[in-house]
Every structure is written in C-alpha cells, then in structure tokens.
C-alpha cells in the first residue's frame, strides 16, 4: 500500500486512490457564498412578492444545499454512486411530499362546510 502523504499542493489530484483534499480556495468562497445567500434570502423575505415567495426561498435554500453537498460534503469528487443515492432519496422524498399534497386537498370541501357550521 503506497501511502503517499499529501505534501505538495492543495490542488493535486489523487489518481492513486487517495481522496480529494478540498483546497481552501474552494472552501472559503463556498462559505462566503452561503453567507451571502443567507443575507439574500432574509432580504427577499422582507419584499412583498406574494405567492412566489415560497419558491424564491426554496430555490435559494436549494442552491445553498447544493453548495454544501458538492463542496463541504465532497460529493462532486466522491464516487458517483454516493451522489446517486442522495439523488434517489430526494426523488422519493419529493414523491412522498408531492403525493401527500395532492391527496391533502381531497376533503377540503367537507372541512370547510364543518368550519362554517362551527365558528370558533
């Protein structure tokens, strides 16, 4: 087993099976982008943009989550199978929440009728 310790530069690729060491020049800008996106999402929530707001907030959160996964969690340099696992889990989570949302409206007419009969 050739254990060549990581000595030279941050950026070196590891063709010998050693994993990728994330350089500071990637980690620090990733962190700065995450902080900037946090400021943006807080500012955006103060604007009155109505129904689009939840989608803007979720879009920014997804960008942040992608940055964390790709760079902090090394997913970009990891084995593709691991990335596939997470993608599938997200697909199934989306199916789960999406299907539940479709069904959740099924009894709204009855609930509304009940609410009208029984004011709080």
């Amino acid at each position, binding site marked *: *087993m050739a*254990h060549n*310790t*990581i000595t030279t530069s941050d950026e070196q690729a590891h063709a010998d*099976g*050693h*994993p990728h*060491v*994330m350089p*500071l020049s990637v*980690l*620090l800008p990733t*962190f700065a982008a*995450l*902080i900037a996106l*946090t400021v943006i*999402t*807080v500012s955006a*929530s*103060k604007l*009155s943009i109505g129904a689009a*707001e939840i989608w803007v*907030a*979720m879009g*920014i*959160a997804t960008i*942040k*989550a992608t940055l*964390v*996964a790709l*760079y*902090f*969690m*090394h997913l970009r340099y*990891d*084995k593709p*199978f*691991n990335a596939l*696992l*997470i993608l*599938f*889990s*997200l697909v*199934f*989570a989306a199916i*789960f*929440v999406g299907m*539940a*949302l479709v069904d*959740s*409206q099924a009894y*709204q007419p009855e*609930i509304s009728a009940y*609410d009208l009969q029984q004011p*709080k």
Partner: protein
Amino acid sequence: MTHTPVHPAPAAQPDQHGHAEEHHHSPFLAHHFESSEQQFDSGKLGMWLFLVTEIMFFSGLFCAYAVYRSSHPEIFIYAHKFLDTNLGAINTVVLLVSSLTMALAVRAAQMSQRKALIINLILTLICAGGFLGIKYVEYSHKWHAGLLWAGQFHPDFSHLEGAHQEHGEPASAESSHGHTESSHDTTDPSAPRNAGIFFSIYFCLTGLHGIHILAGMGAIIWILVRSIRGDFSADYYGPVDFVGLYWHLVDLVWIYLFPLLYLIH
C-alpha cells in the same frame, strides 16, 4: 514482508497497537477488509446510506408542514410573527460556520495536521453549543408566552415584551407570573382556529433537529478524543470524514427549516 493482505488468526486480536511491527498497514484496518481504501469506501457508503434514511426521516415532518401549510395558510401567516427572524438568521450563520470548521477539520485530518484538526473540531463544538444556546433562548421565550403545541397553545402576551407593547407592562408581567384576571384579557382574539398546529410542527421539526445537533456533538467529542490520542492521519481519517458528512446534513436540514419557519409572510 511476505504476508498476504488477508492475514490469518493472529490479526483477530483487538485492534490495539500490538501487531503494528508485523503488518505495515494501519492498526485501524479491520480484519475483514482487504485494504484501507476498501474500509474507507465501505464506511463512506454506509454513511451515505444512513444519510438517505435521515432525509426520509425528516421528509415525514416536512410533509406534515407542507400539508398543513397548503390547507391552512392563515395559521402560518399568523404564527410566524412569533418567531424571531434575527435569532433564526444568527443560528443559520452559526451552523454555516460550524460546517466550514468541520470541512476544515476533515481537510486537516487528510493532511495529517493534528493540531489544526483538534482546533477545528473544538470550534465546531463551540458553534454547536452556541446554536443550542440560542435555541434555548427561543424555546424558553415561547414556553413563557404559552406558544406551545396544539392542546397547550395558550398565548399569553403579557410576557411578550417589545413585540406587543399594547398588551400589559413588562414590569408587572415579570413579577406576577401567570396572572390572567388582573389587567386585561391576554389571549389573542385574532388567533385563527388550531393556531397551535404551527407550533406542533415547529417544535417537532426544530426539536428533532436539535436532537440531531446533540447527537452530532457527541460524535464530534468522540472524534476529538481520538484526535487528541493521535489516531487520525492521511492514512486513516474515515471517522472524521463520516462524522463531517453527518454534521453537514444537519446543517442542510436547517438550511431548509430556516426559510420554512422563520421567513413566512
């Protein structure tokens, strides 16, 4: 050095340092793995699979959130004003900093920098503690204001200073705890029916997330003890990497919780 990687019975002894002179591989290589790489990849696959179950675990609560918000948006619009956006934003930044220090800790372990590893793990722990401290401030505030889950939701605004100045004076509210008959009706007539459901979801989501923070702190302390012992190097840093992955996932969940709970308008 004539032995094969699959070594026989003597290696079945506990993985102390005893057989290091005979085998030139890491003392942490378990006997059922061919190589350190195989051990690392297996551990990493296992960690990712665990994170998949974590995502499905949290998606149940996100589903409850989505269903209730779609059918009762008025509850969420009413209730979000009781959450402090500033505290939520500060906690977001605290967790992002902890994610950075965790990533730096993994990097230090990969580069055999023991001191940097220990420092970054301690910084991560401090951030985790700070997060829970801010969470404690938020929870205790809600507890005193009666902003609890459905069934225990009895908002008492005499304890909310600042946000609702028209209700009671803070000085008397501090002294006489739990009074309702003295000055005014302190329950909010504008509260929609079942407003407590928001706080049920709030406490389940943030509570489960908080439990994950606690578990993560335990895992980081374990890694820290092993780092101080000098276990980790460029040859063997799997546990640091795996705990890091878990910690980043906890951060990921908060990245979604923050806008969903604190940034509703």
